[in-house]
């Protein structure tokens, strides 16, 4: 049976030839992306205001060595953790809501975290990191739940309308946060917290971020179930996957990751949207396969944005949130226009 089948597919040369080519490119791309990330990561360790060269590291008393270990390495670690986890959170959210434009950055989740940070600061002062994180996570969960609740009741489920509703919702929430902050004279600090920026990352101030790879690992373990849930409730139930439970778990992961990253380093606009979209556009939606690639690409995206921000106005810095917003925004608009064209 199988030999006749092979002959049959061999008789149709166009599709099988296409297939083989695509597969080859796939492997090489992943390897190349990883290699590029490693090179860029090592390079980024030696970019900054104070001169640190690899030779300096051999001398433990050198000032450059101290800069390296208390600032450069933590900064790189934070970038890799935040970038990969945020991209994966976006990937999970977009497959579970079955809309490729829904991510924590377009569902209002980020803005809810911002509101949570303001409330936490008013309640506990600005020093309690754990209090801030707890409240931010709670607000993030509430915000995502509200969005999903709206999504289920929405009449217009157009692929572009859904995220626009999320962005509107986020606008309202962020206005509320701004009002609160204004009344209590926190406005400037809120802006500083919210805009993604790695310049403040030094040893002792970023370790919270070590929580997010755990969430990414859980997401990877559930990748197949997320893929099945993304096919829709009918398929999921047929395959024996508890649909509601799996969707809830995925959205909780995405919300918690978003809250921790925003509390830790601020928000990187469009990251959770643009990276998963580009990766799935190239590799398809099978989560088990695309999730690792998304994590690598997310880390690389943030790293590039950070290095660009560090060098473009040297010796000053442009926050990664601003750079990412510009790059991500352009890609987002291109993707939107493409989607519109495809629907029409």
């Amino acid at each position, binding site marked *: 049976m*199988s030999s006749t089948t092979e002959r*049959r597919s061999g008789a149709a040369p166009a*599709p099988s030839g296409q297939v083989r080519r695509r597969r080859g490119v796939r492997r090489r791309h992943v390897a190349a992306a990883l290699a590029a990330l490693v090179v860029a990561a090592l390079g980024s360790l030696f970019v900054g205001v104070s001169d640190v060269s690899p030779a300096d590291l051999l001398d433990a008393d050198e000032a450059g060595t101290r800069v390296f270990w208390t600032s450069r390495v933590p900064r790189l670690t934070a970038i890799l953790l935040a970038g990969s986890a945020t991209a994966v959170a976006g990937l999970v959210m977009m497959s579970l809501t079955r809309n490729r434009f829904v991510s924590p950055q377009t569902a209002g989740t980020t803005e809810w975290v911002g509101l949570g940070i303001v409330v936490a600061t008013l309640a506990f002062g600005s020093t309690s990191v754990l209090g801030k994180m707890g409240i931010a996570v709670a607000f993030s969960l509430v915000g995502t739940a509200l969005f999903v609740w709206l999504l289920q009741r929405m009449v217009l489920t157009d692929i572009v309308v859904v995220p626009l509703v999320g962005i509107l919702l986020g606008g309202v929430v962020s206005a509320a946060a701004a009002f609160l902050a204004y009344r209590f004279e926190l406005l400037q600090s809120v802006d500083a917290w919210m805009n993604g920026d790695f310049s403040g990352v030094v040893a002792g101030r970023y370790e919270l971020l070590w929580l997010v790879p755990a969430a990414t690992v859980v997401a990877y373990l559930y990748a197949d179930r997320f893929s*099945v849930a993304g096919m829709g409730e*009918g398929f999921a*139930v*047929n395959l*024996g996957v508890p649909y509601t439970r799996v969707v809830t778990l995925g959205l909780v992961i995405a919300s918690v990751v978003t809250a921790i990253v925003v509390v830790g380093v601020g928000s990187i606009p469009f990251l959770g949207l643009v990276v998963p979209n580009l990766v799935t556009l190239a590799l398809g939606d099978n989560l088990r396969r695309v999730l690792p690639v998304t994590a690598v690409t997310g880390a690389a995206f943030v790293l590039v944005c950070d290095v660009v921000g560090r060098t473009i106005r040297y010796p000053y810095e442009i926050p990664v949130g601003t750079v990412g917003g510009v790059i991500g925004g352009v890609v987002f608009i291109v993707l939107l226009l493409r989607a519109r064209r495809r629907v029409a």
Partner: protein
Amino acid sequence: MIEFRSVSKSFGDTRVVDDVSLTIPTGGITSLVGANGAGKSTLLSIAARLLPADRGRVLVDGLDVATTPGPVLARRLAVLRQENAMSVRLTVRELVAFGRFPHSGGRLTAEDHRLVDEAMAWFELDPLADRHLDQLSGGQRQRAYVAMVMCQGTDHVLLDEPLNNLDMRHAVQMMRMLRGMADELGRTVVLVVHDVNVASCYSDRIVALREGQLVAEGPTADLMTPELLRGVFDVEVEVHELAGRRIGVPWS
């Protein structure tokens, strides 16, 4: 064997399925026929545990679908619904392989791969194996969905309007493949079809529903009569014997 025991279901004030008791025996193809809104799809959805019944129970091999754990049932009963708007970009092979999920939870064994190959070959999908679903025609996609359901390897297969989107040639081809699943692989196939002649030509048994109630059930030949079809569809139907098959011709 699938047993429906006094199953009822209402949407608001409308009773869509009204106290249906029915046993679908193991093996062969059974077709559910009836006019639009007769409750065929609802009945299938209840068996597929996509809708809870208001009253009554559905048993698959003696297992109550409402209480049996999802993964256990997913190894005995596979379902394909009518509308399958799927935005997920999977390749055909990936989709079919997900049919093995209830058995291997995503880590496919050599045996799983063999069964995926078999389902792909059965539905002649090999040339399309690495195409994404959104690059297929409606008919090819329908074939891929049915292949996935077959790959699930269940004794019972429930299909709601499997001929949707299929032209005449592909509809005949699909029915032949389903016939093969029943005859060669010994699966129990249950279909919802709106074309009574498809039911007549390809199924062993027919279950006729009208306004949520069971009108008649039995071997195909017994049910293809003008009186019964008039009762089910509310339209005059002549039944002719053509090449050994009974064909209903409606007229008004």
